[in-house]
């Protein structure tokens, strides 16, 4: 069979999407792609990350080899210079020719540089490609006065990029009297400008640049009002100019202000030639966003395959993606009948516009808090009814957030486009979830939702959770017969409803009397959420036996006592105290495998007395009995060791003292080594820290125990503060999402995407949870109190530490010991004695 030859000019985002769609639909085409850049198609939307140090390759939409695998011939570094419509040929800049049956123009656009005198000067830059950013970086390293011309979405991104590169107070020049004039109103602009200035930018409004001054190199900008500002670099971001030069020269119809004219099937004035993406002009509009471009790619691919699919335009709702500034504009931002909310104190401005009869939402603006963006966008797009008090849309309703959210999701029709970048509907998501994509990652891989600008991610997650719930998925994962929920669902329920006792959880969400499975799970969740003393509020009966008596039970019914010895460092005085107490209460002592001292063989009745003495000497509970932080082992490190690179003992102490008392789905252990020789065995810990010349390497998800597993490297050369921040996030993520009694290694083994995913969450904050987790961790740690201290000081708790309720002084007479070397051991199991 002879395949139809398709040539695509340009290898940008839309070209890539077209290749993907066409090769997916049909194998009857021989596709060749010509791109003038040296990189294969990359994620231009996230181009600014390149300035943050993300490698160019990491932004590629697919590896170069992907094209080959699809049977597509990719020619990079080859510009098409000429089209011969009659003979259906294209020419490259080197004079090569290639023949086509169908030609797809996906040439994108170039930055529009207004005709200002002096614009050719050295130091006048644009912001569109990797090459542009390389140049920008070079100039920024020497710039003293940097300016961005244009206060739109892109201009602000460029200014933030400059700021991140260390340029001081980059200026933003905007001709209009407000920022982002096409997306937001004056009030929104005011709030936004304040935020940007607080970040370190300088905003100049109503400034029309008329001349770029300087000899060969720019030294300043002169304005229409006669004023002049110094500038040794100027990034021009004043809009886009569709790249229609090829089409123009070939005689295809173009718009008066540029853009290749297309019909609803993406055909140009010549039916075998299509144009898609930012170079296309549809109904007098060029769409400068990726979502409509992707839509066009799908339409063109469908039409080549004989389907009659039509493009119906797009709106230009958008969300700014500047770290630290939340801003969104959707539908018609300037409509009438507006409801406006402004909180000058917190820098929040929200505006929604209603239809003339007040029943529908037509658009709006969110500055400072864009969390409602997705739902509002959906409300406009699907013409959902607005509540009786429309202000609830921006202020939140009186009912619980969760309930109104779920109700909102229900109102969305199946056809609602959730991810506009990829055109993924709610129906498609639900279908994919039904087919088994039950994690966000799986759903993302399978539907591509959330892979573009990632603005829809929160909504996709809500739909996932909601659908799973509706499909009764929680039944499958329910913890036991008393609760139809998974651990994570219980965690969320308890958190949302702020419940603090097991009994209340059972009464609210469970049935029956509970059991030995759900009790410790819920007790652990309560402890992880609120860090209250585990024996209070009647929660003692829900604790696992060892937690209930704050000690490990041993053969024969006595208990062990493990005081915390952070980092394994202990003074002679404290050693003496331990020795004296052990002698007084006749306890067996042993150095544990985790660098501390265990005192075995304590009667239940003696526990409070022993702890009272330990506490008086400055000891605290070591939580050897809890699903909690155990020890942070250390090696001696740079204070004594000739190889030590950092002070590992001090850092181990800091880490142990920080996380002591933190409860989790399973126990957590840590260690800090002073160099790569790794004497503290950090790589076998839930989180391990190893010193480097420049700071610390952080390893996570290792353990010894039943199934040893080495920890994996999460991040390198961290300063102590960053290291702690990453551990905070890592631990909160684990605490929130791990199944009961799952160590971090097993948790990671089950995680889709593995360590790369985890790294993305912890280091790159891909879930946007970092700030919240850090805050939650601070709250938890702030609530820490030594629980043994509380136990001995609280009479109602202390009186539980007796063997006989009707003879409190008497110890359990059945306890028996046997001599062992100069100490003793627990008696044999009585049933074996008998034999």
């Amino acid at each position, binding site marked *: 069979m002879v395949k139809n030859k398709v040539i695509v000019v340009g290898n940008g985002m839309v070209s890539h999407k077209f290749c993907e769609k066409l090769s997916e639909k049909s194998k009857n085409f021989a596709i060749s792609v010509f791109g003038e850049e040296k990189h294969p198609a990359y994620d231009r939307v996230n181009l600014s990350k390149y300035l943050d140090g993300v490698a160019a390759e990491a932004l590629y939409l697919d590896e170069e080899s992907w094209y080959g695998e699809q049977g597509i011939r990719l020619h990079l570094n080859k510009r098409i210079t000429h089209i011969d419509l009659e003979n259906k040929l294209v020419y490259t800049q080197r004079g090569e020719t290639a023949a086509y049956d169908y030609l797809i123009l996906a040439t994108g656009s170039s930055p529009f540089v207004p005709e200002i005198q002096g614009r050719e000067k050295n130091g006048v830059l644009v912001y569109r490609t990797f090459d542009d950013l390389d140049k920008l970086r070079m100039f920024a390293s020497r710039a003293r006065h940097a300016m961005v011309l244009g206060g739109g979405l892109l201009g602000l991104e460029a200014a933030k990029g400059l700021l991140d590169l260390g340029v001081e107070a980059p200026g933003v020049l905007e001709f209009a009297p407000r920022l982002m004039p096409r997306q937001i109103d004056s009030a929104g602009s005011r709030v936004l400008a304040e935020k940007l200035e607080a970040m370190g930018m300088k905003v100049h409004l109503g400034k029309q640049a008329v001349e770029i001054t300087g000899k060969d190199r720019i030294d300043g900008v002169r304005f229409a009002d006669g004023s002049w500002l110094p500038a040794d670099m100027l990034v021009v971001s004043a809009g886009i100019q569709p790249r229609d030069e090829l089409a123009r020269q070939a005689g295809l119809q173009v718009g008066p202000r540029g853009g290749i004219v297309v019909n609803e099937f993406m055909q140009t004035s010549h039916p075998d030639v299509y144009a898609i993406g930012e170079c296309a002009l549809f109904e007098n509009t060029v769409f400068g966003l990726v979502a409509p471009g992707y839509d066009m790619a799908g339409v063109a691919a469908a039409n080549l395959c004989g389907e009659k699919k039509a493009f119906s335009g797009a709106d230009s709702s958008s969300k700014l993606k500047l770290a630290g500034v939340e801003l969104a504009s959707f539908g018609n931002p300037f409509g009438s009948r507006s409801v406006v909310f402004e909180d000058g104190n917190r820098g929040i401005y929200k505006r929604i516009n209603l239809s003339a009869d007040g029943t529908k939402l037509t658009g709006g603006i969110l500055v400072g808090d864009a969390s409602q963006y997705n739902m509002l966008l959906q409300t406009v797009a699907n013409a959902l009814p607005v509540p009786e008090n429309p202000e609830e849309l921006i202020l939140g309703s009186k009912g619980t957030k969760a309930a109104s959210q779920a109700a909102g999701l229900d109102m969305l029709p199946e056809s609602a486009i959730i991810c506009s970048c990829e055109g993924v509907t709610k129906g498609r998501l639900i279908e994919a979830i039904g087919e088994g994509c039950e994690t966000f990652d799986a759903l993302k891989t399978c539907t591509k939702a959330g892979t573009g600008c990632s603005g829809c991610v929160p909504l996709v997650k809500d739909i996932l959770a909601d659908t799973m719930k509706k499909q009764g998925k929680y039944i499958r994962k329910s913890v036991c017969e008393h609760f139809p929920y998974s651990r994570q669902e219980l965690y969320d329920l308890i958190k949302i409803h702020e419940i603090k006792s097991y009994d209340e959880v059972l009464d609210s969400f469970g049935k029956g009397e509970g059991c030995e499975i759900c009790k410790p799970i819920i007790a652990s969740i309560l402890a992880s959420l609120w860090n209250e003393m585990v024996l209070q509020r009647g929660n003692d009966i829900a604790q696992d036996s060892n937690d209930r008596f704050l000690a490990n*039970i041993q053969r024969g019914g006595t208990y062990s006592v493990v005081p915390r010895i952070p980092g394994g460092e202990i003074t002679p005085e404290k050693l003496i105290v331990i020795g004296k107490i052990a002698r007084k209460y006749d306890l067996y002592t042993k150095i544990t495998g985790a660098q501390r001292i265990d005192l075995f063989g304590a009667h239940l009745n003696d526990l409070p007395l022993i702890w009272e003495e330990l506490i008086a000497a400055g000891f605290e509970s070591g939580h050897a009995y809890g699903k909690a932080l155990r020890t942070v082992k250390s090696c001696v490190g740079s204070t004594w060791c000739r190889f030590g690179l950092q002070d590992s003992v001090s850092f181990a102490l800091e880490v142990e003292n920080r996380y002591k008392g933190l409860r989790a789905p399973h126990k957590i252990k840590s260690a800090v080594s002073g160099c790569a020789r790794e004497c503290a065995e950090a790589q076998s810990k839930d989180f391990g820290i190893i010193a480097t010349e420049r700071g610390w390497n952080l390893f996570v998800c290792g353990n010894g125990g039943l199934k040893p597993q080495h920890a994996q490297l999460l991040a390198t050369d961290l300063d102590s503060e960053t290291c702690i921040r990453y551990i905070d996030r890592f631990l909160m993520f684990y605490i929130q999402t791990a199944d009961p009694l799952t160590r971090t290694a097993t948790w990671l083994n089950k995680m889709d995407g593995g360590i790369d995913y985890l790294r993305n969450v912890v280091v790159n904050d891909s879930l946007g949870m970092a700030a919240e987790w850090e805050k939650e961790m601070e709250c938890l740690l702030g609530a820490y109190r030594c629980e043994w201290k509380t136990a001995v000081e609280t009479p109602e708790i202390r009186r539980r530490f007796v063997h006989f309720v009707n003879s409190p002084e008497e110890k359990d007479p059945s306890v028996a010991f046997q001599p062992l070397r100069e100490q003793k051991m627990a008696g044999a199991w009585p049933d074996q004695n008998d034999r």
Partner: protein
Amino acid sequence: METVTETSWFLACRVEDTIPNGGVCVKRDDEQIALFYFSRQDRWYAVQNECPHRRQMALSRGMVGTAGEEPKVACPFHKMQFSLASGECLSGGECRLKTYRVKVADGNVFISKN
């Protein structure tokens, strides 16, 4: 014909000494009895404190709950479970706990002597 024996009772403790939805251990001469109070249903159970599995004096420190309607306790040592109503082992063991009857009067908790 069934012989009706008069139950004789032993005063174990006060209601406020017990733990709602948990257990305490009561000493009667050389015997140890685990006493449980299910406060939601206002039901009381008493069984031998010694776990028949490895003969540990531990059942009063076990965790209580239900399996369906059956009230039960799990031993803290190896999590063997026993019915508090019948004393039967619910974890497939042959062993069975001795059970006692409980009555409450004027805030006093009594355990049957046999």
